[in-house]
C-alpha cells in the first residue's frame, strides 16, 4: 500500500549571510493512513521546516529538492493553486499558538467559517454553525457567545484549541501538528494531547506530531522519527524506540526526560549544542556531543540503516548500544548537569 505521505530525500537549503544553511539534509519519512508519526528533535533540527514544506508554507527563498508525495502526487512539483486547494480538506496544520497565529481583527467564528465556506460552500449561516460546532468539539465553553469573540479574548490554551478547530474544520486526512503543546502548562498540554487522540480515532486521520518533547509522544504516536541537524537519525515504532533506542542522541533525549518513577534523581542533559549547519560536516553531525564517537564517526557519515524490522538508526555503533557504553572514566557518555527533577 502506498503511504499517505511519502517524503523522499528531502533537502532544504536557505541562503544566509554566513553561506548556505542546510536546514534539512536528505530526509525520508513515510506516514500511512491513520498513522500517528512523532517527529522529535531539538530546535534547529529541521522538523518545523519539514512540516512547513509539506504544507507549502515555506518562505520564498528556500531551495527545496527531493520529493514530497501526498497520495502519490508530488507536492513540490504540483501547480501551486492545486496544492493550496489540498490545504484544508486533505492537509491541515496546527501551529504553535502565539498572539499572531490567528487574525487579531477577525472573530474566531468568522476565521473558521471562512475556511469552511471556501472548501464546502453553503451559506454563511451554515458555515458559522459548523464553526461553532468545531469550537464546541475542541472544548471551548459557552460557544454560542464566544464565536463572536476575537483571539485576544481567549487564553493561550483556548487559542491552541481554536487552532485545532480551524485545522480540523474540513476533516483533513493528514494533520500536521507543530509543537501545539509547547507553550502550554502541563495540564492543558495533557488535555490537548487527549483531544487530538480522541479526534484522531473519531475522524480516522493521520497525524504528524512535531515536538521536541519525547514524553508527549509516548501515549500518542505509533512511530517516531528522531531528527538531528537536518537528518533523521533514528526511526521506528514508538515502543521499540522507548524500550531500546539505537542512537546515542535518542538515548540522550530519553535520559533528559523527567520520570515519575525516578523522582529526586538528577536529569541528564546532552552536552553541547547543534553544529553550525552552514559548515560542511564530514562525519556524523552528533559525534562532537557523543560519548560513543570514534574516529570513524568523524570521518564518514553514517546512513540510516535498518537494524531490526521497521527500526532504523544512523549510528555505526547501533548494534552495541543495547549493551551500554563500556566504562571509560575519561569520556562519560552523558554528563550530569545541575537540573533538578521537577
Amino acid at each position, binding site marked *: 500500500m502506498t503511504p499517505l505521505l511519502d517524503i523522499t530525500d528531502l533537502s532544504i537549503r536557505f541562503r544566509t549571510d554566513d553561506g548556505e544553511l542546510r536546514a534539512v539534509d536528505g530526509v525520508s519519512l513515510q506516514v500511512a493512513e491513520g498513522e500517528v508519526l512523532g517527529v522529535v528533535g531539538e530546535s534547529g533540527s529541521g522538523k518545523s521546516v519539514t512540516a512547513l514544506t509539506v504544507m*507549502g508554507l515555506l518562505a520564498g527563498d528556500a531551495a527545496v529538492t527531493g520529493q514530497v508525495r501526498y497520495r502519490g502526487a508530488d507536492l513540490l512539483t504540483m501547480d501551486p493553486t492545486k496544492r493550496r486547494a489540498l490545504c484544508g*480538506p486533505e492537509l491541515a496544520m496546527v501551529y504553535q499558538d502565539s498572539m499572531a497565529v490567528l487574525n487579531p481583527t477577525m472573530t474566531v467564528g468568522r476565521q473558521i467559517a471562512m475556511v469552511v465556506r471556501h472548501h464546502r460552500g453553503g451559506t454563511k449561516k451554515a458555515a458559522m454553525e459548523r464553526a461553532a460546532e468545531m469550537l464546541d468539539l475542541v472544548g471551548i465553553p459557552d460557544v454560542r457567545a464566544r464565536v463572536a469573540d476575537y483571539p485576544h479574548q481567549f487564553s493561550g490554551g483556548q487559542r491552541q484549541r481554536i487552532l485545532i478547530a480551524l485545522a480540523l474544520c474540513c476533516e483533513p486526512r493528514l494533520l500536521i501538528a507543530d509543537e501545539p503543546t509547547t507553550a502550554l502548562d502541563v495540564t492543558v498540554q495533557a488535555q490537548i494531547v487527549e483531544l487530538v487522540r480522541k479526534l484522531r480515532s473519531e475522524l480516522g486521520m493521520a497525524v504528524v506530531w512535531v515536538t521536541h518533547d519525547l514524553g508527549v509522544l509516548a501515549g500518542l504516536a505509533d512511530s517516531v522519527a528522531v531528527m538531528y541537524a537536518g537528518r533523521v537519525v533514528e526511526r521506528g515504532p514508538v515502543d521499540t524506540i522507548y524500550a531500546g533506542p539505537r542512537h546515542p542522541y535518542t538515548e540522550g533525549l530519553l535520559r533528559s526526560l523527567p520520570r515519575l518513577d525516578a523522582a529526586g534523581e538528577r536529569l541528564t542533559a546532552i552536552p553541547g549544542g547543534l553544529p553550525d549547519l552552514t559548515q560542511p560536516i564530514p562525519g556524523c553531525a552528533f559525534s562532537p556531543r557523543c560519548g560513543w564517537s570514534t574516529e570513524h564517526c568523524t570521518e564518514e557519515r553514517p546512513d540510516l540503516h535498518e537494524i531490526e524490522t521497521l527500526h532504523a538508526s544512523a549510528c555505526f555503533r547501533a548494534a552495541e548500544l543495547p549493551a551500554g557504553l563500556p566504562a571509560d572514566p575519561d569520556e562519560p557518555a552523558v554528563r550530569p548537569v545541575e537540573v533538578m527533577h521537577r
Partner: protein
Amino acid sequence: MGHRAVTAYVIRRCLQAIPLLLGISVIIFVLLQMTPGGPMAAGEGAATQVSPEQIARLRGRYGLDDPLVVQYFNWLGGVLTGDWGSSFDTGRPVLEAIGARVPVTLQLTVVALVLSVLIAVVVGVFAASRQNSLVDHAATGASFIGLSTPSFWFGIMLLYVFSFQLRLLPSSGLTDLRARHTGFAAVLDQAEHLILPVAVLSLMSVASLTRYVRSSMIDVLGQDYLRTARGSGLPERTVVLRHGLPNAAIPVVTVAVLALPELFLGAVITETIFGLPGMGRLFVESADLRDYPVLLGILLIAAVLVVVSNLLADVLYGRLDPRITYV
C-alpha cells in the same frame, strides 16, 4: 465595545480639546498682530488720498487701537456667541463670508481624499503583494517623485499641458461662464473644472498614502496569521484582501484621516492656481488685505479641523482594532 464607552470617550476628548483650542486662539491672534503691515497699510501709503484722520477713525471703528488683550477678549467673546466679526474688506459677517466659500473647498478636499485613499489602497496592496517586482519599484519610484514635486509647479504644468496645449480641460474657475449649464450638464461642467485641481491636491496624499499602504501591507503579509490563512487553503486573493487588508488598514486610516487638514491646507495653493472660489483663496485674499476677522475665522476652523481629525482617527482606530479599548 459598547457605544456608551465610545460616547464617553468622545465627550472626554472634546472637553480636553477646549484648553487646546483656547491656546491656539491666543497664538493665532498674537501671530496675526505680529505680521508686518495691517488692515490700513494701503491707506497709510503716501500716494493715497485717505487722510490720517480718516484712518484713525477707521482704526477706532474696528477697535484696532484698543489694547491687544481687550481686542482678543472682544473677539473671543464674539466667537463664543456666534458673532465672528465682519470682514474689514467687504463688511460681510465672517461666518457668512467663509460659509459661502466652504462648499468648494469641501468638495475639493473630500474628492481628493477619497480618490487618494482609493488609488493608494489599490497601488499599495498591489505593490506589496508583488514586493520587489517591476510594478513595485515603479510604484515606489512614482510615489517618491510625487512626494518631491512641489504642487504649485505640478499645477502649472498640468495647466500648460491640458489647458493650453491640448485644450482638453478648463484652466480656471468652477463653472464655464460662457455657457449656462443646467441639471446634469452643470454637474459635468463642474466635475470637468475640478479634475486638474483634484489632481494637484491629491498628488501629495496619494504619494504618501501609497507608501503607507505598501509598507503596512508588507508588514502584515509577513505575519503568522496570513500563513495560517494560506495553510487553511484560502486562495491568495482572499488571504491578502480579507485577512491582510483590514489589518494593514489600521495604521493607514489614522494617516488618511490626518491627511484631511493637510489637504485643507493644500487647498490654499490649489484654489489660488486654478482660481477656485474656495476657502483657501479667501484666505490668500484676506491675508493680502490683513483682513484679521476673516483670517482668524479660517485659522480657527482649521484648528478645529485638526482636533476633530485627530479624534476621528483615534475613534476609527478603536473601531478597526478590537484589541483597543477606550480609556
